[in-house]
């Protein structure tokens, strides 16, 4: 007897999407399992807040369910979800800014409880914490497009062409945004160190 997850083993995303379009709600679970962590990484990379990022992921899957008929079955579901997630993250970021919320809320948990990639001593940890604060400051210096490009490049490892397609902008815009983003971050991070 096959378990629910085994049922979808080896089934391609596009086939799962077709199932979803045919009204099979069960097809949503394997799509979520395949993409939730990647989408969370992108949303977190942009918003720097775990609760907001989680809500973006949640909304993306709700949208996939509600608008599955609008998704082209020949297209990549992952790319569609990425586009939805990054746009939702941009909207949420914009709303927060409009409401006057501090642009980036670095959560204490993120600074204190995320294990470093290597074993580190207390001094190393202090250094790591400072580095993270510098990085947050650097990210805060970016405008929405620059932030999106940086996020998609580093948190989703998309090519520049894919980023252009995801954001619906020209390749030249992506290149100039990435170039300027790094320059702005360099300046802001330098000021944070000074």
């Amino acid at each position, binding site marked *: 007897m096959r378990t629910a997850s085994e049922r979808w083993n080896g089934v391609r995303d596009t086939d799962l999407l077709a199932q979803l379009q045919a009204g099979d709600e069960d097809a949503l679970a394997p799509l*979520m399992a395949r993409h939730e962590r990647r989408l969370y990484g992108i949303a977190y990379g942009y918003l720097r807040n775990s*609760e907001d990022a989680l809500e973006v992921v949640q909304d993306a899957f709700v949208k996939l369910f509600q608008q599955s008929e609008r998704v082209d079955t020949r297209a990549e579901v992952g790319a569609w979800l990425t586009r939805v997630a990054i746009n939702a993250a941009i909207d949420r970021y914009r709303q927060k800014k409009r409401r006057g919320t501090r642009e980036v809320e670095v959560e204490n948990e993120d600074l204190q409880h995320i294990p470093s*990639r290597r074993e580190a001593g207390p001094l190393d940890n202090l250094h790591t914490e400072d580095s993270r604060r510098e*990085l947050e400051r650097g990210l805060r210096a970016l405008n929405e497009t620059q932030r999106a490009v940086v996020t998609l490049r580093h948190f989703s490892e998309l090519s520049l062409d894919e980023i252009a397609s995801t954001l619906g902008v020209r390749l030249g815009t992506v290149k100039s945004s990435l*170039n300027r983003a790094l320059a702005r*971050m360099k300046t802001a991070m330098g000021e944070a160190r000074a």
Partner: protein
Amino acid sequence: MNLLHFRYRDRLGLLAADVLDPQETDAMSKHVSTCRPCQAELSELRLVSVALEDDAVMDRPFPISSDALRTRVLAQIRSASPHSVKQPVWSLRPIAMALSLIGVGLLTGVLVTRMSSAPAQVEPAQIAQASADSAAADSAANDAAFYERLQKTHARANAVRYLSEAQDVLMQVASAADCPNSGKESVDVTREAQTSRLLLKRRAALVSGTEDSLIAARGVMEEVEGVLQQVAEFEQCTRRTEVDAIALRMDRRKLLMKIDLVTQELAAP
């Protein structure tokens, strides 16, 4: 320094991010190897790029389990689906129907009065008076029936909305995220507790004076109220075992399923 220097200098970020094609990378690298200001700039930009890469591969745990996320997504889908009654069911349709009935009543009254009074050669003033009396009587009867029906429909819609929102809260409690700094010991139920308190406050106003329309739902509403009271008393960070106990109790009583059945019953025309 030549013109190429300025062109390359303005693209050092792309070199640092390693997104240039091999040909351009070679050309720029050759220039940078002979340009000290470019070397310094590139080295700083590379530090930024490395910081971003390090941050991206940081092991950030997904804040809730996949099952919990699925529960949340399904709850949101459910609450937004056309079957759920987020919109008041009564809206304008019954009002339009009632107005039509009143119109038909008035017209019928006028016609009947005219037909029955014609052979007796009644004065026009008497006809008008009779028509007006008949229309007023019909209208009053229709008004009373209409308002009674409207009130019942409204009460059922309110109860459905209350139960649907309560169901969302109860599902969300079962999948609440971990509390910061608590490991897996406790969960953050701030929002759920707050919503429960608001729902309990609204409950009395929602259903007062309309109990006879909601007899079928009374038992489930009392059960829901009991659970909401427990959730409303939760602290921001509540021990996971307490939340699990409530989830288990709801599961045993099949409370969420009962809410589904009752809301369908109430929402039925």
